[in-house]
């Protein structure tokens, strides 16, 4: 039904386009006057209005209706089963929906049947209401624009202004996304800090992370939400990753930009792009299946025990993942150091290596640092590799051969674990917020640095 309406709106809009166009044409030939706007602009004017009104009404009513029904029914279920939690209520509700739609429900009882029948009529009302309102809105707006058509109507200008506004709205979606992220993170973060009585120092400097073990009546045990073990793991893995990625990426970039000829570049660049295009879950699999056993065997051979889930394996594979990132960004900045500087150095009798080390790299330094900062930010935010290869236990250790956990792993563990969502959300979103702030700061720093580099050479 909703989908049919969704398709109906543009169809109606196209009809409106032709009708208005015809009308404008007729008007101009009847009066013999020149229209201010061409007939198709009148058509477009009608069409845009119809689409706007139709889709707008449809969207608002769908979302509102769904939410309203959901809220009402959940309210009724929770009144009937005050002892159960939201998970149970949702289950009842989804069963009721299944019953109403005639598909298989996990179980049936009186309550579910009742809710199902309420759902049936509410849903029917909603659908018919939405349909009527949408069609009504489309018709009304079509009529209104049709009425407006005159010789003088500045349809083109109106239509183009609508288009401009529409474009501007699209451009702000990114901003809305950011606002959405910040709001959704902050909301739960504040609740979490409330639950630990705003003992921020315990969160930032505590060394025990076990947020769900001390939960009691909405109160959290502030001594068990120390983020230090997670930071330690994140930093250790990031460090290992950067130790792999920075030298390899940087040397590769130097070679590609200053030593390799066109043919080598034509082969190597796609290889790097391929590395960059591999999904992280594949890297995670690689870490588990190949790198971790390899390290363990190597460790056994030299008598060093290496855990099968180790920070080292995760970090190394993450490093491989970040190589193309560092190399392509550095390649860009190294290439944009002007040739005249290289010529100046070479003409003094410097070798290529001296030129690179003493002229090119210092000149490209801000750009390279920015690439590294972005790489670090990527490593910190990377999830799948560490979820699969780094381990779950918040283990405060300086030994990269043991399992360590990271901020991202804990977010996934909290949200996908079988703890009640309401309890797990607080710590998880707080970690998310921390992650967001860290990566945001790093990204802004990186952009500053790059801007400084660009200023100097563009």
């Amino acid at each position, binding site marked *: 039904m909703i989908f049919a309406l969704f398709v109906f709106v543009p169809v109606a809009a196209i009809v409106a386009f032709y009708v208005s166009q015809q009308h404008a044409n007729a008007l101009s030939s009847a009066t013999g006057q020149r229209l201010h706007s061409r007939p198709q602009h009148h058509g477009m004017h009608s069409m845009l209005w119809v689409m706007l009104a139709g889709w707008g009404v449809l969207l608002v009513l769908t979302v509102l209706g769904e939410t309203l029904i959901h809220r009402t029914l959940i309210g009724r279920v929770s009144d009937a089963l005050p002892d159960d939690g939201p998970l149970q209520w949702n289950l009842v509700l989804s069963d009721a929906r299944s019953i109403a739609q005639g598909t298989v429900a996990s179980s049936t009882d009186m309550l579910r049947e009742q809710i199902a029948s309420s759902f049936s009529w509410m849903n029917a009302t909603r659908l018919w209401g939405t349909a009527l309102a949408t069609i009504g809105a489309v018709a009304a707006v079509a009529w209104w624009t049709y009425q407006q058509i005159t010789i003088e109507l500045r349809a083109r200008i109106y239509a183009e202004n609508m288009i401009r506004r529409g474009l501007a709205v699209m451009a702000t979606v990114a901003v809305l996304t950011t606002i959405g992220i910040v709001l959704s993170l902050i909301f739960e973060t504040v609740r979490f800090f409330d639950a630990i009585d705003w003992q921020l120092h315990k969160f930032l400097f505590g060394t025990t992370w076990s947020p769900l073990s001390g939960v009691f009546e909405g109160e959290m045990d502030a001594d068990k939400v120390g983020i230090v073990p997670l930071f330690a793991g994140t930093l250790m893995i990031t460090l290992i990753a950067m130790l792999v990625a920075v030298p390899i990426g940087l040397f590769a970039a130097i070679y590609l930009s200053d030593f390799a000829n066109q043919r080598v570049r034509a082969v190597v660049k796609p290889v790097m792009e391929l590395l960059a295009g591999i999904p992280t879950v594949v890297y995670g699999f690689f870490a588990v299946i190949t790198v971790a056993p390899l390290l363990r065997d190597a460790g056994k051979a030299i008598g060093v025990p290496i855990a099968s889930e180790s920070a080292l394996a995760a970090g190394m594979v993450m490093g491989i993942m970040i190589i193309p990132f560092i190399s392509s960004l550095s390649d860009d900045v190294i290439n944009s150091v002007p040739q005249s500087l290289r*010529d100046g150095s070479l003409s003094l009798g*410097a070798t290529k290596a001296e030129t690179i080390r003493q002229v090119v790299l210092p000149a490209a330094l801000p750009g390279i640092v920015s690439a590294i900062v972005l790489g670090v930010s990527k490593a910190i935010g990377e999830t799948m590799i560490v979820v699969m290869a780094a381990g779950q236990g918040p283990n405060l250790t300086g030994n990269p051969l043991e399992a360590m956990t990271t901020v991202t792993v804990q977010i996934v563990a909290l949200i996908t674990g079988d703890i009640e969502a309401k309890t797990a959300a607080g710590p998880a979103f707080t970690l998310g917020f921390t992650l967001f702030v860290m990566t945001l700061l790093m990204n802004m720093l990186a952009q500053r640095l790059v801007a400084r580099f660009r200023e100097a050479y563009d």
Partner: protein
Amino acid sequence: MTDVKIKAKDVQVYYGDNHAIKDVSVEIENNTVTAFIGPSGCGKSTFLRCINRMNDTIDVCRVEGDILIDGEDIYDKRIDPVQLRAKVGMVFQKPNPFPKSIYDNVAYGPKIHGMSRNKAELDDIVERALRRGAIWDEVKDRLDAPGTGLSGGQQQRLCIARAIATEPEVLLMDEPCSALDPIATAQVEELIDELRQNYAVVIVTHSMQQAARVSQKTAFFHLGNLVEYGDTPKIFTNPEDSRTESYITGRIG
């Protein structure tokens, strides 16, 4: 005094399929300023860059024929271009100081060639080069300031000082004054005249007056050919080739 420093014989240069220098033979003398003139795109820069093998950095560029400096073939396999460039310095059209301090800009060459044993010697070399670049008085109080912060003319003189600091024997200059105002140009020209005493100087220029003012010998290039080469006064007053005449009187180019 005919003391031949650079001797080119049947030099051909190709950029891929583009034949940029055709059959050029020339003898450039020591302690002389030689000017290369000719219309844009005729190959002056290309030929100049052959003399210190800067063309090696361009992938598609191919050089044939012989260029001898002090009787040694510089395109011989045993010659290291790095060593050659220490002997044949170059100054570019656009001043290109390194993003380093003024001091480091000048000290760069001597350092990589190991020309000084200690800081004092290096200081000495830097001061001497800056003096001979006629810029010492302007920068002596701010040697630690970045070289990129100087004015265009100062930057160009800094680049000249940088080139002299490695004590080359030949100095190649590709339109060294094109980015400079008349005052700075005059300073650089004066400098070139003094440098002649120690070096063979080759200068590419688009300005007839400049060529006439600073050079003793002039070579006129046209479409990759060396059309005429001789004493500057003769080229400017009594050219043999009609193309040269047209060019210096402003009818082609």
